[in-house]
């Protein structure tokens, strides 16, 4: 029997790969210098480790090391990219475009830019979670300066057509930012081919440490940004602050491993994900959220209709998963991503995101399949709605009395 709870929440965060932790430890012990110290060996040693890690991050996405700027994580990368570019290019126009299903780090930054006088379009996605390219093209205006579209969605795992979007943007001189926090190690990224100007990365979604990320800033054609954190002029002035050497080394190693192992790892994870999906497919009134094939192999997002979301989470607490509700303050709100796909609130609340990863085993998947069968069955037995559905009542015609 596997250890409980079974971790199936790799899109929230991943464990640090032990090989990564091993690389980090020397920089938490004897190699403690400040990489900005120019007057002694301790500083140079730290600086060269930072340089080597920068090369590794660049290699995973086929970029130049000079195009990589360290940040404290993808949230900061997204903030830096969007505010930095919007402010720098504000003389050219004030219109920005993104999708309704982007991460909060993009959406909240867009809201902030709107308060500062920019105008934003939040595009709907199709039922499968993918952007409609025609709609995207139609939304572009002569004063559009910046577009932001994530490569892989954090909730439903769908892969957006960023190559096509990049073409549309480049033709019009629009800066194109891509949040790739959920993408590294899950699909190949070739920035020499893609017409992407800015790309955000995170370490802790790819078996590296928390608290470190990076922003790719294209050099040819050159993309300019206004820095958002000022000080000692680290990172060629793009981002000041002492570099956390051990975290950077960890990100470098995590991205190196991702480059070397991505193909074989993804094949293995796809088999497990498909096994999970197939194993659950005989459960009635089950819906898959997001495009069935245009998605990363790690993600399975399912709605279990006629099951109350909170009770379901309690019942399957042996599985560490995310639900279709966002816990904001005291209230439970249905996921805005699932709502953007047109899912009813009820169905969004009864959704589970399973995200698999490097350490997921077949035994864990089989345990999850059995547990879900048992618990969903039990919860539905208690559900008056389910009883009505079984009796053939069309719930959409039912008049509910207000309490």
């Amino acid at each position: 029997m596997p250890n409980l709870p079974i971790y199936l929440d790799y899109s929230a965060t991943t464990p640090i790969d032990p090989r990564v932790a091993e690389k980090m430890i020397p920089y938490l012990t004897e190699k403690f210098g400040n990489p900005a110290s120019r007057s002694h060996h301790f500083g140079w040693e730290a600086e060269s480790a930072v340089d080597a890690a920068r090369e590794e991050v660049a290699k995973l996405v086929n970029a130049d090391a000079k195009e990589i700027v360290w940040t404290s994580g993808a949230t900061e990368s997204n903030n830096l990219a969007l505010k930095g570019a919007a402010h720098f290019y504000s003389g050219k126009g004030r219109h920005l475009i993104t999708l309704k299903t982007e991460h909060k780090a993009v959406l909240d930054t867009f809201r902030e830019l709107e308060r500062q006088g920019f105008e934003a379009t939040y595009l709907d996605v199709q039922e499968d979670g993918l952007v409609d390219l025609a709609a995207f093209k139609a939304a572009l205006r002569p004063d559009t300066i910046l577009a932001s579209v994530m490569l892989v969605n954090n909730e439903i795992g769908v892969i957006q057509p960023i190559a096509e979007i990049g073409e549309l943007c480049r033709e019009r001189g629009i800066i194109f930012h891509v949040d790739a926090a959920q993408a590294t190690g899950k699909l190949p990224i070739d920035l020499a081919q893609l017409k992407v100007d800015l790309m955000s990365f995170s370490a802790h979604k790819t078996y590296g440490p928390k608290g470190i990320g990076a922003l790719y800033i294209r050099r040819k054609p050159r993309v300019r940004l206004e820095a958002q954190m000022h000080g000692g002029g680290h990172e060629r002035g793009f981002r000041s602050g002492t570099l956390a050497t051990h975290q950077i080394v960890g990100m470098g190693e995590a991205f190196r491993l991702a480059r070397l192992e991505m193909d074989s790892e993804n094949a293995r994870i796809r088999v497990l994900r498909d096994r999970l999906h197939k194993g659950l497919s005989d459960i009635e009134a089950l819906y898959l959220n997001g495009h069935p094939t245009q998605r990363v192999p790690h993600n399975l997002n399912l709605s279990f209709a006629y099951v109350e979301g909170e009770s379901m989470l309690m019942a399957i607490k042996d599985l560490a998963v995310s639900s279709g509700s966002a816990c904001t303050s005291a209230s439970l709100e249905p996921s805005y991503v699932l709502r953007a796909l047109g899912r009813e609130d009820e169905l969004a609340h009864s959704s589970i995101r399973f995200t698999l990863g490097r350490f997921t085993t077949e035994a864990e998947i089989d345990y999850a399949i059995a547990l879900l069968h048992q618990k969903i069955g039990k919860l539905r037995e208690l559900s008056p709605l389910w009883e009505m559905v079984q009796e053939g009542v069309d719930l959409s015609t039912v008049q509910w009395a207000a309490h």
Partner: protein
Amino acid sequence: MFNPVYFDHNASSPLDPAVLCAMLPYLSEQFGNASSRHEYGRAARRALDEAREQVAQAVGAQPSEIVFTSGGSEANNLFIKGVSATYKPGLLAVSAIEHPCVIKPAEQLLKRGWMLRQLPVDRSGRVEPNQYQAVMAQRPQLVSVMYANNETGVLQAVETLASAAKAVGAVFHTDAVQALGKVALDFRQLNAAGVQAMSLSAHKIGGPKGIGALVLDKRLSLEAQIAGGGHERGLRSGTENIAAIVGFGLACQRATEQLSAQAQHLLTLRQQLESGLDKLGMILFSQDAERLPNTVYFACPDIEGETLVAQLDRAGFAVASGAACSSANPEPSHVLRAMGVAAEQARGAVRISLSGQAHCANNAAQIEQFLSTLSATRLKLQRLNAMAV
């Protein structure tokens, strides 16, 4: 084996092994995201809460007054930009000797219509009280004066300065990155005097790099500078760096516990070092000011600081020239220039910053060895200089 002596603790200090031990579980099996609702997430949340209490306790603050950031630079940026955003553009005053991560954000406000006054310092590096009062009379909205300077170690009369700022309704902030763990900090007492915000960093006190905090009076409104998800009560978004936060919490606790025990040891070492430097004819900066017990700043007449530190590095001593925190900057230290030190002399500046913390404490033998190496190095460089002429 070549085992250099590390005299650059103000740049970054080695991690306390006890802190590393506390961090390791969060770099391995305790990997949850503190925002997750399952057990992995809740365990991370508990660790986060505990560390917040440790940091708060170490500086006499409430846990709810601590906002974690990626370090001291971010904390300073967050204060200057975040608080100024809630005001109509007005007057901002920062001391002339602030770290660049206060001065540069302050300069950014000029673009938004703010006026900036640099508060001058005297020859020893203390904020000049009369000129400070004159600026206060112009009713600034924001004032920032660092608690202890990273180069000279000079301590400012923060409570007095804050009271004067409070009297004219200004919000007062202090960058306490270099003071934490070296002198006692009591945010309750500082807050009563008028300090409403204080920046901290972990990696100068035996904690990890990549983590710091802004201690914030809750009555002060502040606009977040990193949006997205509403972490840290909406003041700083981004997945919490649990391992580093846990390390920061324990480092704060241990550094403050050791504080009084190490103060005397550091003062003795500083005395030994300064009298030795004096005998060698070195120019000592800020010697008559109240200073951190660990910092000594001096210049060797006729020898470039860069050249000297390079030679000292080869001889096995890691020291800093000017401010080690900023990237390659050929300009003489802005701190010394503000003190009225001639550019030529400022270029010769060398900073020694010691540690008294048990895991990396410097000792008298190292100081003695350093003084004799310095003496020999100087002779060698003087001879080279003479030949060049």
